[in-house]
């Protein structure tokens, strides 16, 4: 199962990057979100151990590692904020250049 999970996370990562490399603004935003998902899953997999019960102090069985979970909570929120911000920037860029084609946005050149 570990191999499959790792493979899935890697695939999500690759898809995210592939999407980010598209010319279409919306697609690259989608890519960013997929990438964030892949990274969060990866962070979860760095937990010290996998439990059978959630991390509650009343749980009977082995609890899962609480620390990476708390960190991922923060990561999800921040990546959400970041995605929203990037989206608005992409929107501004496309409004300014009247295009959704990132290749036509070449303001960095001058």
């Amino acid at each position, binding site marked *: *199962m*570990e*191999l*499959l*999970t790792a493979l*899935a*996370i*890697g695939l*999500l990562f*690759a*898809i995210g990057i592939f*999407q980010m*490399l598209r*010319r*279409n*603004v*919306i*697609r690259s*935003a*989608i890519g960013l*979100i997929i990438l964030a*998902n892949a990274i*969060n*899953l*990866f962070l979860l*997999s760095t937990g010290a*151990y996998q439990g*059978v019960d*959630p*991390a*509650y*102090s009343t749980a009977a069985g082995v609890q899962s590692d*609480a*620390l990476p*979970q*708390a960190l*991922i*909570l*923060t990561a999800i*929120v*921040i990546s*959400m*904020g970041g*995605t*929203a*911000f990037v*989206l*608005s*920037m992409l*929107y501004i860029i*496309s*409004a300014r250049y*009247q*295009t*959704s*084609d*990132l*290749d036509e946005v*070449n303001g960095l*050149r001058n």
Partner: protein
Amino acid sequence: MVALVVGLSPMRLRIATDKLAWGLAIFPMAALVAALNAWSRIADGGVLSWQVNWLPSLGLSLGLYYDGLSALFVLLVSGIGVLVVIYAGQYFQGDQSAWRFQVYLLLFMSAMLGVVMAGDVITLFIFWEGTSIISYLLVAYKYKDEEARAGAFRALFITGGGGIALLAGLLMVSYVAGGSDLATILQSGELIRSSEIYGAMLALVAFGAFSKSAQFPAHIWLPGAMSAPTPASAYLHSATMVKAGVYLLARLNPALGNTEAWFWLLTLVGGTTMVMGAYLGLKQHDLKALLAYSTISQLGVFVMMIGQEMDIAFKALVVGVLAHALYKSALFMVAGIVDHETGTRDIRRLGGLRRVMPVSFALATLGALSMAGLPPLFGFLAKETLLATAVHPSFTPWESYILVAATVATGALLLAQSGMLVYETFLGPVKDERVHGHEAPWAMLLAPAVPALLSLVVSLPDAQFLEAFLANAAAAAYGDKVKVSLALWTGLHEPVLLSFVAISLGSLLFWRRAQVRAWQDRLLAGATWNGVYTAVLNGMDSLATWATRLQQGRLRVYLSIMLVSVVALVLLLGGVPLPEATAVSWPILDFDGELAILRLFALLVAVGAALASVLLVRDFAAIVALGASGLAVAVLMALEPAPDVALVQIVVDTLALVILVLALTRLPRPQRRRAQAFTFAQSRRGLLRDGLVAGAMGAVVTAVTFVALISRPRESYLTPFFAANAKPLTGAKDIVGAIVVDFRALDTLIEIAVFSMAGLGIYTLLRLAARHHGDRGTQVDELPLPVQALRSYGIGGQLVSPFVRVVAYFVLPLALIIAATHMMYGHDQPGDGFTAGVIISLAVGFWYVVFGYYQTRQRLVWLRAAPLISSGLLLVMVSGAIAAFVNGHFLSPVDFGALLGLPLPAGFSLSTSFLFEVAICLAVVGSVVYMLNTLGHPGETTDGNS
């Protein structure tokens, strides 16, 4: 110590005119007096030091160190500083902008004092770089002159490059010695010399010192720096800055010196520089260039002397440094006077000035005699000790022959130049009738007069103080006692005989100077080191052009390059340490757990939906596929089991979907259609390239994740603490929740601040865009509601069915209730303030879709972003501050309900954690409202019916 305080004080003095030169001279004067005063306390070879910890965590400290060697250089820097400040005041008389020059000069003086008194190599480096930078400002003082700028750049380029090498070298030295302070380093000589990296240290430190002290082949910057105003040349480029490298080498001699490598490096470089500088000096016809080359030659002598392992060499060093500083500053200042009064420094045009400028003539003669090494001037003593070193019995015969030949040749060449300097300028016939001169004012003559006369006086007998002073300086550099006696006549020794040879040869050269110079011009006319310098510079230029060409402005290309670099780095650094096949418990493909099938299914959906978001043609469909993928990720998280994370993932995924759709609707429809069309219109090669980049990155991530998954340590250092203390300390059953709002509350505070900033940033950005479209100055919150807008419904202006509207009416209060329970019981169950906030935001988003922007804003009066965010952040701060009063720690858990004895329902506690959850919720709603308002605002869509 006192000297530095006084030396630094000019830094504060920013405004002064040339009239104030006399006043400004007080500062170096004070430094001089303080230095001499403090000398009595180190006369026995002691050290005055002072240290303050600067960054103790990095082992950095600022320190001062004052011993005999420092004293010699402080004496030069401050003593000649006094004269140069006065001289510059006269030189720039009438130039009202010359205060700038004086400020640079005093700043330089402070930096230079810092270099020679630094008690820590880091301190030393900082002041060292300071001298390079201020030297740049001084050389480029006449900044409208292109030649001055080029000369200044060249000096900075070379000395700055040397500075970087020096820093690396000094860091290595302090690493090996175990401390960056000078006392430690000087005591760790054995350790340093036996270190494995001794070679690298030596090379780097020596390169730094050589570049600063204009040693071959880095000497080329010094003649270029002669485009500085003459006061700066007299001060920086003869007496002080160029001697910084000499000082550094002498200073570090007890630590780095006394090895074969040290001897050969310093002797060869110094010797080459000595002969070459003297040879090239004879070619020059600009007074200052001539003086610059003879300075280079002298610097070579000093470097060579430091390379030796005998006390007499260090006597030659200190006597030479002092003698050179005296005569060279005098000569430079006289050259400046000649330039100032006649308008030229070219000896092909000057001549016969002795009648009109008798005092200058006398001073120049004194200086030149000293430079030529003729008795009874101080320069004679310097040359005698140098020759005495060359014939020292510790050299092998061959070494001695070469050394003697080189020093005698140098002496002869310098003598010829000295003669030329005086004769061509002041004696001989008048060569150019247009050149008229007159004597300079007495104050301007005073400055060169002092060092010139000192060159004469110091060699008189009974100079016991000076002998002790120089002996002390030499001992500090040599590391052992050095005897210095300044008697002019000590009998007929080898050195005296060699001196006669040098003088005779020099006279011959002077007599036949026209032929010699003509022959010099023909020899190797084209080959100069400047050519190498220019080639290096041009090479760097074309490298930069090539690198810039990579920047085509396409974001996607940048991203690809970065990703490929990451993959390349991973591979270069040895790749991911994959476990050996035997170490892994096979089979990895186990389907034992009862939830394994569900996990497999979630993995498939996550990847499949993500893939669909690539392949689906319509953007909207792609966004929906993304949502499905995100939900599958949430399932995976729930299977961890991490219910809190899964819950947040679900709401965030939904919110992201809403925001993406909103953003999509804001793009004009034709533009969107076009975008959809070219999504797949890329060439096969481009697709392949992107696929390869993504695939490589994915492979790396797969490998890393796989290693992370199978090598889970099974035990954690930190988690047991949280697990054990969550309930007793914070009263929370949910350990994750306790970590978020209690144990790592400050993190969370920053997190919601960042999230709020994201909302605020979006708002600001989009308002900026709106202004580009001509909508000026109005804020979204303040926009008057247009009448027809009140009648518009839905996000596209279409009226949605009554049923949906009724649902919307119910959804919002329901969302508020759910949110409230999340906040109240989030401590014991999955869910927290963030989830609550997003749930409310989603309900609000639903309203935007159903009722449209204006209606929503009119009906939900409380929905104002800025007050929501600020009240949220304020609430955390206030409750955290109250906790600080109650418990003594900011954001520590306090149960107010129990504290005040309030009757609350079971399972709910009115604690700081609860208030924090509320605050998070408020901030999140506020921030999302910003996003929704700006992205959902209908005003800026270019076509209304999308």
